[in-house]
């Protein structure tokens, strides 16, 4: 079957199988920034934005994306690069596998929350796991990126 989506700003008709998850379809269409870390919607590594809202592409049927706009890191290179500068300046990046999903969630949070506190940031990002960094470095980077005061 076919679904019509705005993928990273381009109107596209994607060929999908009815049971396919969005993650697999996106990777098949070349959005390799989208990763899989688990099979139980637990890690957040597969996060993409649907109409600007973070969703777990590993457990969202591709069919559900029909008529929606989907954004991956491939579509937000400038914004993500800006965030990446803060992350790398802090040394808050390690293997990077969690980073694309994390970046999209941060960008969505930035749009959604005005002047969030550290506690709000922690809650917003709670679903994005990272096994390498221990989170505090990421927090330092985001705080600087958002201009949060300690």
């Amino acid at each position, binding site marked *: 079957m076919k679904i019509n989506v705005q993928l990273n700003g381009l109107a596209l008709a994607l060929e999908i199988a009815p049971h396919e998850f969005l993650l697999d379809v996106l990777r098949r269409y070349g959005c390799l920034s989208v990763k899989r870390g688990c*099979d139980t919607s637990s890690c957040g590594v597969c996060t993409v934005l649907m109409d600007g809202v973070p969703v777990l592409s590993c457990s969202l049927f591709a069919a559900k994306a029909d008529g929606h706009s989907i954004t991956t890191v491939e579509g937000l290179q400038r914004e993500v690069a800006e965030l990446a500068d803060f992350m790398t300046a802090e040394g808050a990046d390690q*293997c990077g596998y969690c980073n694309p999903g994390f970046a999209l969630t941060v960008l969505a949070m930035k749009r959604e929350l005005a002047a969030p506190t550290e506690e709000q940031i922690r809650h917003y990002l709670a679903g994005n796991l990272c096994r390498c960094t221990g989170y505090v470095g990421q927090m330092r980077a985001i705080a600087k990126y958002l201009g949060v005061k300690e």
Partner: protein
Amino acid sequence: MKEVNQPKPKLEGKGLMLGRPVYADDLAPQNALIVKVLRSPYAFARIKTIRTEKALQLPGVACVLTYKDLPRNIITRAGQGYPEPSPYDKFVLDEVVRYCGDEVAVVAAVSEAIAEAALEFIEVEYELLEAVLDFEQAEGNRSVLHPEPEAHSKFDIGMDASRNIAASYRMNVGDVDAVLEQCEVVVRDRYYTQAQAHVMLEPHAISCYLDMHGRLTVVSSTQTPFHARRVIGMAFDIPRKDIRVIKPRVGGGFGGKQMTHGEPLVAAVTLKTGRPAKLVYTRREVFESTFSRHPMRFDIALGATRDGRIKAIDMNVLSDTGAYGEHALTVVMGAGSKPLPLYNKVDAVRFNSVVVYTNHTPAGAYRGYGAIQGLFALESAIDQLAEKLGISPAELRRQNMIAEGETSPIFKIMGEGGEGVAMTMDSCKLDYCVRRGMELIGWDRKFPRQTVGPNKVRGVGMALAMQGSGIANIDMASAVLKLNDDGFFNLMVGATDIGTGSDTILAQIAAEALNVSTDQIIVYSSDTDLTPFDKGAYASSTTYVSGNAVKKAAENMKRLIEIEGALKLRVAEGEVEFDGTTLRRKDGKGSISLKDLATGLYYHANQKQLVASDSYVGQKSPPPYMAGFAEVEVDLETGKIDLLHYAAVVDCGTTINPNLARIQVEGGLVQGIGMALYEEVRYTEQGRQLNNNMLFYNIPNRLDIHHVTVEFAESYEPSGPYGAKSVGEIGIDTPPAAIANAVYNATGVRIKDLPITPEKVLMALKQRRQ
């Protein structure tokens, strides 16, 4: 120091965040067959019959392989130097399956759906064998996991397969029993550590294809490409020259990717079909069918004089290696060789260890590598001793711990899998680490406990740790540097960056030695065809061992540049100076830029390519040190533990990159906190994993981690590149004991088996009240 000891951004950090295709699955050929593995539903069974015809008939299935289709070559998947100190006890596919999740058959098909369907069509009849699921009952059990005659070790590792012993080791200094006898105060206790899962976020992923010469090319998320090449060659009797292993970016390893898991399975498909193939593990497979941390049981006795001089340490360890013996000996030795020298003023030490086979998911390398297990036991016992002596735990440690300029006989006796090397501590700032850590946590104000509410108490606890920096006299690294025609360099290393930032760190070391800026170094890491040999990313070795190799290679390159510069400037060698961009005659009568020199060398006169290389093997393995401090709040009604603050002060020598070193320690700490409080691979009575997914196996998330402080001692290790020691593992080592000690100080109950769950605390509190 211009380039090292600087917080340079990680070279590939931006590209990774921008989602560039770099990991094994991203790079797999589009037309790769999808490989799926049929895995044993039983903990221990013999395959009576296995029929694959129906699966093979399914349209789209390219091959189905069972033990009948593969050579019967016994290997170890350990991914260590050769000969490995691990038993050879694994066939790529075997007639006997030894744990739930063991490989039964391999299917390759044109799509995932077809491959999965094909698994259903394989008909297997099993003869169930009596599983050994309690590691305390394994030794000498009538059920023997490895009766096959091929199982062997390459040298004496204390293996006795007929008694389910994969490895064993014992050593002693002095007469422990006699010294304990004389001690005025003795503590004896038993501790347990659990199986922990690595949970790197990128599941194991491998793709294989035959290149235009028909050579097998393997792209794998591995920590040890050169060892993987050797293991694949041995498994299939193919010369190593016909195999190439490429390590792309790796999404975390922590020891879990030191071993070869799926590589031989995918290789078998490509060798059989001639077609590209790929296997990406499901998370369930990562849990059930790769490795976990070795669970261990410790029996410890500590003896001291009344005034707090520790005189004897007796440590007896039983370790569970699961169904196969990867890292059986070396991890258990780490449980002794790393913790024991911390208290080096003793008269006698004994270490006795047995590693047994059970029908569990195999255990293997995992950050902390035995040290974290041993330190949990030892550092818990030290606190118990302190209490019995009526001395503060910090004071007891200060009186007895190792210091700069000192040594321990254990360094010489115990290495990893064999003898160690004698070392004097040229750098050891443990004293500073303890002092500073106490300040950071507010020890003097907070020890041992504060009551903060009717049912809430807070406590602080501490623990020390040491690790190593590579494996002395065994593990080798090398580097090749190439000067390019525009004056920039390629650094080729077999060192395997698995997310730690080692490519950046090695580039910084090369830049420092060459006196150029780090951005002039383009790093290429880990391709067995293109990069020189390196043992791989393990044993906290990359900065120290590979770093020294890079430094030597870069110094060689600098010499070559100066020789060519002297020639060009028509003076004798030694009469020019290189400042990083320009070569100048010392007499001030001429200069040439590196760029012009290189351009000349490649396009004009005296034409030649400048290439420099060198190798390094550590003559010692200088330990990094750490003091860790935990402040916890315990709810006495529910047993719930909140970790309010963790402060760590680390001596890892000079940090080559302070930012990356900090993140390594922070990441390690949080994994250690996971082991202390949340994580445990659990099994049913039939030996199936209960929590084989990330829903039920909880790694710490952002809400669990409040306040973590990491600082470094000012330290310089003379044998390290620019004073550096390792930092990869040390961070994980202290949380289990420090948190257990903090919980005890807060509540008066001591949890001696990890993880420290609210249930255990609550039960212990209840028992105490009765």
